[in-house]
């Protein structure tokens, strides 16, 4: 489903290279975990996958279902089913959450040539998804993410994901800021989306999330490269020993 080949990318503004020859393949149905020390480039990779224009790809390619997506803007990528749950979702005053959800859903449908949802159908979907994630309806009456607590923002991201039903879900530290119950609720939400035609990339620092969302593969990202890949036991190993051994072995 996703194939990243020898990807090099830099910050557009100052030319600093962050991703330095990264290779990664994620198959349909797979849950891949990406771990790695602070500042290794995990969020940057997720931004690049989503098409953020602050980063410039200088070499390599990103293939999604066999096609390069480098020329697509974020909206086009989203319509093709790529979804990034942000590490730090932004607050957008003045944009009502419900309006945003409706526009996003319908714009994606339009781009895919599907009919727009009727208002009652839309309302029902939101209500159901919000109930599953234990999101209070009052929250949805507020402007987008405005005044949401850290955990509420993360839950709201997963709500969007549940509604948009993407094919490639990228979760950037969705577990950070969540309390124990919320972690369980959010994980259940993600697990509910697991299916043979959908892939999930989970970026996390902690094994705890991976107990709930059990990964098929685990990759260590360091200085812009994947330096080691393995199965779920790799996460346990990292939890026990830290990154030093892995980094040393790769050097």
């Amino acid at each position, binding site marked *: 489903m996703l194939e990243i080949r020898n990807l090099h990318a830099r910050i557009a503004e100052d030319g600093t290279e962050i991703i330095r020859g990264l290779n990664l393949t994620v198959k349909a149905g797979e849950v891949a975990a990406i771990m790695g020390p602070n500042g290794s480039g995990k969020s940057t990779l997720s931004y690049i996958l*989503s*098409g*953020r*224009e602050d980063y410039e790809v200088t070499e390599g390619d990103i293939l999604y279902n066999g096609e390069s997506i480098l020329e697509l*803007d*974020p*909206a086009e*990528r*989203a*319509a093709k089913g790529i979804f*990034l749950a*942000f590490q730090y*979702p*932004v607050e*957008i*005053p*003045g*944009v009502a959450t419900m*309006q*945003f959800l409706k*526009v*996003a859903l319908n*714009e*994606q449908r339009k*781009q895919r040539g599907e009919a727009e949802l009727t208002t009652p159908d839309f309302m029902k979907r939101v209500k159901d998804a919000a109930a599953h994630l234990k999101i209070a309806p009052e929250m949805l009456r507020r*402007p987008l993410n405005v005044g949401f607590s850290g955990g509420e923002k993360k839950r709201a991201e997963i709500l*969007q994901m549940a509604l*948009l039903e993407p094919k490639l879900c990228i979760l950037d530290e969705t577990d950070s800021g969540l309390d124990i119950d919320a972690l369980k609720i959010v994980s259940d939400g993600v697990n509910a989306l697991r299916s043979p035609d959908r892939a999930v990339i989970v970026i996390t620092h902690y094994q705890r999330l991976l107990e709930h969302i059990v990964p098929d593969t685990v990759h260590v990202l360091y200085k812009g490269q994947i330096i080691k890949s393995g199965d779920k036991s790799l996460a346990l190993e990292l939890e026990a020993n830290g990154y030093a051994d892995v980094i040393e072995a790769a050097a």
Partner: protein
Amino acid sequence: MSAQPQIKLTEAENALLAAYTEQVGDLPGNGDVLIARDRLITDIKTRGLPTRRVEAWHYTDLRNLLRQVPANANGDVEALAPLISGSAVFTLENGKVAAKAKAEGVTVRRIETMLADGSGAFLMSPRGDDDAVGRINGGFLRDGLEIAVADGAALAEPIELQVLHSGGQSHARFVVTVGAGASAQIVERQQGNGASAALVSSVSELTLKSGAEVSWIIVQEQGVSDTHFGQINFRLEKDAKLKLFIVNAGGKLVRQEVHGVTLGEGADFTFRVVNLLGGESHTDVTMTLGHDVPETTSTEIVRNVVFDKASGVFQGQIRVAPDAQKTDARMACNTLLLSEEADFSTKPELEIFADDVQCAHGATVADIDRNHLYYLMARGIPERRARGLLVQAFVAEVIEELDDAPLVEALEAVIEGWLERHGN
């Protein structure tokens, strides 16, 4: 004024004078009115239209910006469905009253009648030397409405004043008095059918008696080649509360003046403006507010969205009289510039002659927040639509403050419609 030397008139000034000569024969008015009209037009002839050297017109050089004066048009205009259903609708077509609704607690007289019998002669005095809008309006005035809301009346439905034209010239006047303790919502719509270029002027005199509460909403949606001169002069007596709300969403050359005074303690003025500017238009909102007595309050918020090569200006002058202690006035002007060539100027002026007052003003200019745009796009919203949402968000705050669901919805529709037509 008559001492001023004759100047060389511009094409537009000459056209104005010619239009007057042509129309004066069938403009309504007794002898007094006619003499007053002549005087207004003579003023224009001797001094010309104001240039940027006149302080009140510094950002809108009318003499150079007004290029053409269209001939009169008499085409048909279709009445609009009211912004808020159920409103009592009064319609002016090409400057003449065409339809009058009936509403309980409201008495109405035509300005045409008042001019004919001379009782409207007082309408012919300009505000001052710089009052080009008043002169043009008074000189050419044909009709309009005097509306009186009885003391204590609480109007159940809004009054909608539709000032419509089919191009050409249209000059209207409203004289509105809202009685003591009465409340009313007035929607003023300025719009044409776009058939040809128009020169429109509309002047309103508004008096709120003690304790009256009024929301007055001006929705200006003139055509892309129209010139629009609006002026509203208001007086607020004790404890009167006026919310004046203006949405400028049209016109090529727009000057909207607001002049008000607080005359009694406890008077409050809430002023909100949304300027949606695009193309090569120029829009000027000029406000002068006199806090003339102690303990009166006002807030002014102006939000501007400027696309293309459009330009705009907000001049906000607040005067606090020497004994107007405990005045509280707060003014803000926020602009979203959406193109390199877009331009907006802000000129706040606080003239404070009392010492125990709270007065503040602030101005900001920004572009669309790139992080916001990225976030919306990352959810599949195409750039154009995402920008539209963010622009709407920028003005939404001001609109939602109206706290009146049907009105908010109607204004949001006006804004959305405009953005669909103009948004990058």
